[in-house]
């Protein structure tokens, strides 16, 4: 039953995506070109990496609202380590990613050790990490990175944007882990029934801790890609990206109560959102109008799946 409803949701989403692509390419002849589509892939990588990790977190019935702040903190630290402390750039980026990953680990610790609900814990660290980013940066931006650094965010490998390769590899690895490994099955088990998972001898706390750490790591890697793409660091980077990521995950059919969801669904949701954003901006709608549309799409998609599900199971 679960498998069938999953297939239904993703098929529904794929049809919606094809429909959107057809309508948008009919609207503007600049939309369905290889160059534009590859560029869109470039733009969705940061949200994509975060959304893939978020799929696991939400599948356990948790949530991570602090990812945007971790992104901002990591971006600022990359700049500060390199420019102000004189650390070589590769080492600075690695060190910043380590701090971002540690920030995710702290989230996990607060959630598992102190049993603070994930929503509250990550709301609190959202404020804390963003505050740290602001305090460390003192509202100064860091610019003037060496040319080779831009390969990550602005360059190409085999004709495809560098970061799109990273996203693709991350998506495939995550999909395999979630669907076929013991770790993935534990994730679903925790989301379906945490108490039962614990009594089955599964490492509930360990898995959760690892997942929030991974979420921090994904946000930190996204931060370095972000810096490389826009050539600067600012403390407000990534604010609100958690909403984009959660929208993609929920649109992709992951239940906000946990226990259900796939990486494929998340990737489809991500593509749909990016296609709509791009198509609308080509059609002359401003950025704020597209934010509005994403909200409407989120509610309608969940509404549709709620109605389908009810007719299926009850």
């Amino acid at each position, binding site marked *: 039953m679960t498998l069938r409803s999953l297939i239904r949701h993703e098929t529904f989403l794929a049809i919606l995506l094809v429909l959107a692509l057809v309508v948008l390419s009919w609207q503007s002849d600049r939309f369905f070109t290889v160059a534009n589509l590859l560029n869109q892939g470039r733009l969705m990588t940061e949200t994509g990496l975060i959304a893939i990790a978020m799929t696991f977190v939400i599948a356990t019935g948790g949530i991570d609202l602090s990812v945007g702040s971790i992104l901002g903190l990591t971006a600022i630290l990359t700049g500060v380590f390199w420019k102000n402390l004189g650390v070589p750039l590769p080492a600075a980026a690695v060190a910043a990613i380590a701090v971002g990953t540690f920030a995710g680990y702290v989230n996990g610790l607060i959630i598992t050790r102190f049993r603070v609900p994930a929503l509250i814990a990550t709301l609190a660290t959202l404020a804390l990490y963003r*505050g740290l980013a602001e305090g460390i940066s003192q509202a100064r931006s860091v610019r003037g990175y060496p040319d080779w650094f831009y390969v990550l965010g602005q360059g190409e490998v085999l004709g495809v944007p560098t970061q799109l390769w990273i996203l693709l590899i991350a998506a495939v690895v995550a999909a395999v882990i979630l669907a076929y490994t013991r770790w993935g099955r534990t994730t679903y088990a925790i989301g379906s029934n945490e108490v039962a998972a614990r009594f089955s001898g599964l490492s509930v706390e360990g898995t959760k801790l690892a997942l929030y750490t991974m979420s921090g790591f994904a946000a930190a890697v996204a931060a370095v890609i972000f810096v490389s793409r826009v050539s600067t660091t600012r403390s407000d980077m990534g604010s609100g990206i958690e909403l984009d990521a959660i929208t993609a995950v929920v649109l992709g059919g992951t239940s906000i109560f946990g226990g259900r969801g796939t990486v494929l669904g998340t990737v489809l949701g991500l593509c749909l959102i990016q296609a709509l954003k791009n198509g609308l901006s080509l059609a002359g709608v401003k950025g704020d109008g597209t934010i509005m549309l994403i909200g409407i799409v989120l509610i309608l998609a969940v509404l549709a799946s709620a109605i389908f599900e009810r007719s299926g199971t009850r």
Partner: protein
Amino acid sequence: MAMSGVDLPPVQPQTNLRRPGFLRRLMADYGQELIVLSAIIVLFVAVTAVNPRFISANNLTSIFSGNAYIAVAAIGMAMVIITGNIDVSIGALIGVLATISGTLAVAGYPIWVAWFFPVLVGMAINGLIGILVAYFRIPSIVVTLGALSILRGGLISVTGGTWISDLPPAFLIAQQKWLGLPVPLVAMIVLTVLAALWMRYSAFGRSLYAVGGNPEAAVATGIPIERRIVAVFILNGFFAGLATILFATQLQVIQSTVPPNLELTIIMAAVIGGVSILGGSGTVIGSTLAAILFATIGSALIFVNVSAYWLRAVIGLLILATVLADMLRRRRTV
């Protein structure tokens, strides 16, 4: 915590056979509220010792009046969280309602229309959210995340980020005084007391705790859960509307933005005030005290010369510390 249901209840020493004293009962009923209140008092004493200007009339007015709208909005939020739901769109909603209010005032509508029409709009929008949550079974976090995007995006695309100025002086009620006290302060106290009494003693108020605490038992006792959830969201819109009146009328201009993370501050006020995020417990007195605590912390940091850039980090740390302390306290009492 998961194992606590298996453990035997601890044996209470029966040395004291008298009724539990007034203080003991107060601690049991309002423990978290008293902790927050003590934190406020300690903070006031400590900061005043460092910088006596902290308790000047001007600063007290800015602490209480400038943040009363957060306390008023937190009343509605506390009710929503007590039923086991959440609203992350409230900051964006206040921004939208403030713009509507200012536009009406400048367009020459009667002042009371400019004040209260947005309240109705807030109730209507939240009513819709409540229907999606209650009857279509979409989790409130998802609905209000969507509503957040719609309201925020809609506000910026309609206003284009412009400010509303030339507001009529009579419109600016938050700057006025009533019996010598600032209107926002009076509004905050009156609304908190009324809401607290209503939540504690009315059948409706008690039923909200039942909906959040144990929905199945609530259904069994004949409480119409769906209608209560819609009602609680409409109430949330009502308090957001009243909060908007206080927010929109405090300056000569209305910006098309609200303070960053306003919804976070409001949710945190409710939670720190003792409302369990899992639903079923907490009071609106606690949420108002917590809103005052946040305002005091923000002001205190400025008075002890913490750099403005580090302000949010320190506030974040304090919020986290309070959450952790709250969880430790709860684990001990469970």
